[in-house]
């Protein structure tokens, strides 16, 4: 009985993907507490050189068992995966205490990422080899060990949990799965390591890749883009680095408008934004620096692309009633990394007299988008300090202001169950992540069971605007778009407020 599983364990040495082999029926020996890769007691030294790390550790593991069977070959596809014959040669190489490695960038994020990934793999292999029965040992002992079930546990960072005592929260991927009969249980580990492997590859080859690329490398394994997205973020959180440090680039989605803005890229190209069209915001890694050519007086972030296009078409950045020119940004809904990084950079570098305003829908999702810019997202909470721009100020659309604009309550949309759920969840947020105004609007939204979308501003009749109190409408020309008037008054008000503070 102990012989059979052994034969099945033989992995095709070229098949370094951890695809599930139906005959792989591991019967594990007594389990020991799983190592967290973050533990300090690692059974092997961490060497400084990139490729030599794996060779050494491999050799260490093999030494433990003193047996060479094909299954112990590293699952990572490295050009220099050692043959068994090479092991003796590598024994003399740096065993970790050698800090004079040629790289010199041992502390670079790339190096850190590579080391982190490799350590995780080694941890896994250690658990794997420990769990396998030893050949050549006393059968009786083996029988006893085989009788007890065992498992492999992979600890990775849990981005959703808040850490209690400062140590990052972790979750575990187990093999076999905690609940019986849940299906191909090797899949989570396979997916995770595939992502880790591709990231490792990208780091070593120094060829950046994107999340989309990763997904298309093995569609049958991943099945959906979302899985890849989640694992990439998990991997980044586990090695405690940013996604860009894994050499996985973001693709850009956000748009920018305003001719006073120009972006200097790393390859010396210059992107000049225009007043009437959107320019795609490049990823942060490509940007050398920003340039504000004129005296920019305001920054406006809008949630909806449609609103952005309208403002562009109407050349809003050059509107005469505004205190000066500005820049309009849209993330097209929930913003991607590049857009958030742009906003953060502007927030960090612009003087405080320049307001950064957000125009979002008057519903729970709109406010959530504003909170992503302002406080950071749940998914990337570990990167909040680099991405959250607290300066962002939400200017609407506020449902409570609509009656002043002559918009009938009945013109507002009824809330959907999803809106309600989201609003209730947001109301549970701590006070430092939920401004009083937002809380009031969310409660009002739940109570009236209505929400205000940005489009509703277009339904304001011109006659109604005649009667509106002067404080809300300023410098109106006879036929301007209601959205323009709304924004002009809000922006002017805020600019005046901030300049009165300084």
């Amino acid at each position, binding site marked *: 009985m102990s012989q059979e599983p052994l034969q099945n364990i033989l992995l095709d040495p070229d098949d370094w993907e951890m695809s599930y082999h139906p005959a792989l029926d591991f019967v594990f020996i007594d389990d020991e507490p799983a190592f967290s890769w973050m533990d300090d007691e690692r059974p092997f030294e961490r060497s400084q050189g990139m490729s030599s790390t794996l060779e050494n550790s491999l050799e260490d593991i093999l030494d433990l068992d003193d047996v060479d069977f094909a299954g112990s070959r590293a699952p990572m596809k490295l050009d220099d995966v050692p043959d068994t014959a090479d092991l003796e040669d590598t024994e003399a190489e740096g065993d970790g205490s050698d800090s004079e490695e040629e790289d010199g960038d041992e502390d670079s994020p790339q190096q850190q990422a590579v080391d982190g990934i490799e350590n995780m793999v080694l941890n896994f292999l250690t658990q794997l080899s420990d769990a396998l029965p030893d050949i050549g040992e006393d059968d009786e002992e083996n029988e006893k060990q085989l009788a007890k079930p065992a498992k492999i546990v992979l600890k990775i960072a849990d981005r959703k949990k808040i850490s209690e005592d400062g140590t990052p929260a972790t979750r575990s991927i187990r093999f076999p799965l905690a609940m019986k009969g849940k299906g191909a249980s090797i899949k989570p580990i396979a997916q995770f390591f595939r992502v880790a492997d591709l990231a490792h590859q990208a780091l070593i080859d120094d060829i950046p890749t994107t999340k989309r690329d990763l997904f298309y490398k093995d569609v049958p394994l991943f099945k959906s883009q979302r899985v890849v997205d989640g694992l990439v973020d998990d991997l980044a959180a586990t090695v405690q680095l940013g996604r860009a440090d894994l050499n996985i680039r973001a693709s850009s989605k956000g748009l920018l408008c305003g001719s006073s803005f120009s972006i200097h890229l790393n390859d010396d190209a210059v992107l000049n934004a225009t007043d009437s069209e959107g320019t795609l915001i490049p990823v942060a890694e490509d940007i050398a620096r920003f340039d504000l050519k004129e005296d920019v007086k305001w920054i406006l972030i809008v949630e909806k692309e449609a609103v952005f296009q309208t403002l562009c078409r109407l050349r809003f950045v050059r509107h005469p009633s505004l205190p000066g020119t500005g820049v309009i940004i849209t993330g097209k809904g929930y913003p991607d990394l590049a857009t958030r990084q742009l906003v953060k950079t502007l927030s960090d570098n612009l003087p405080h007299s320049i307001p950064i305003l957000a125009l979002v829908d008057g519903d729970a999702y709109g406010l959530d988008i504003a909170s992503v810019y302002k406080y950071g997202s749940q998914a990337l909470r570990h990167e909040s300090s680099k991405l959250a721009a607290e300066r962002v100020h939400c200017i609407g659309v506020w449902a409570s202001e609509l009656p002043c604009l002559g918009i009938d*309550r*009945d013109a507002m949309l*009824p809330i959907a*169950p999803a809106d*309600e759920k989201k609003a*209730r969840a947001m*109301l*549970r947020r701590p006070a430092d992540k939920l401004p009083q105004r937002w*809380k*009031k609007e969310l*409660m*009002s939204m*739940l*109570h009236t*069971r209505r929400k205000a979308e940005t489009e509703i501003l277009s339904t304001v009749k011109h006659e109604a605007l005649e009667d509106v109190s002067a404080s809300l409408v300023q410098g109106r020309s006879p036929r301007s778009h209601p959205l323009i008037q709304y924004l002009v008054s809000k922006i002017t008000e805020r600019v005046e407020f901030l300049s009165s503070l300084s």
Partner: protein
Amino acid sequence: MSLVYLHSLDCKEPHGDAIWDITWTAKDDAAVSISADGTIKRWDSKSGQVLRSLDAHTLGLVSLSVSPDGRYALYNGIEGLTRLWDMESGEIVGEHESYVRTGSEASEPSWSVSLNPRGGTYASTGGSGNVTIHSAEPDTFGQQQSVLQSGRGKFGMRCSHSPDGSRVALSVETGQVYIFDLQSSALTATYTSHAMSVRSLAWSPDSQLLLSASEDKRLILHDVRTSASGKPGSGVVASLTGHSSWVLSTDFSPDGRLAISGSADKTIKVWDLAARAAVSTIQDTAEVWSVSWQPSSAASSGAAFVSGGEDGIVRWWRVAGAG
């Protein structure tokens, strides 16, 4: 015939945010109000002073139900935290977190709550369109006893016990009004006179008529008598129109002859039910979320009422010529 009501008193310490419900109670001539600012206050109707108040809840309070003797106030927060307040002792005698999933029974955050006039239980509505009957006894407060199902999963805006304690009325976001018999836990009548949300219900003192106030700007009077044969009442008796926006609140006068309504159009209307017409329109300064008649003897019925609205100020009104 028309009546003139005069603004007689403003409260001395307004709420920090909108008042979402108010009741003039039978005890000590006191009024109780709940607000979006999370506080509940008990007022003296002669001076406008606060008699008692409770510390601010973190989130707004959306529903209030006072016991007939005016001693207990059952109130519910927007997140579903329901509390029973003994206004004589000032203690909170019961608390139920309706948003916590207990696992065994399907639960939902409560929205509108109503104390059974006979005591012992209270009813709540939520997103499922059902009425849940909970225990109102201090030691088992909040425990689910039964669920009355309307059959339609629409958001339950308001539930209200009949004054005789035999029935519970439920109104939903899509306009339907359901009446359940508590004894048999059965749905006895369904009224579909509104197509938009019905935000408020008021029973006549003799439990025979039910007024519904809707976002369709109308109030509808229903005959809800149950005949000996068990057949439900004939239904719509009158339709009261005149408001130019959502009707938010309604109440029956103690003698059952007058009705009052508060609206998002910032006015309060008093209606003569026999004539089916408005006899008074009072202009207020903000959306009137809640109105309540003074509970008094039939002689002075309809002489005074209290209102609370978006501006957070409790106002008392008296009919002109009253002493």
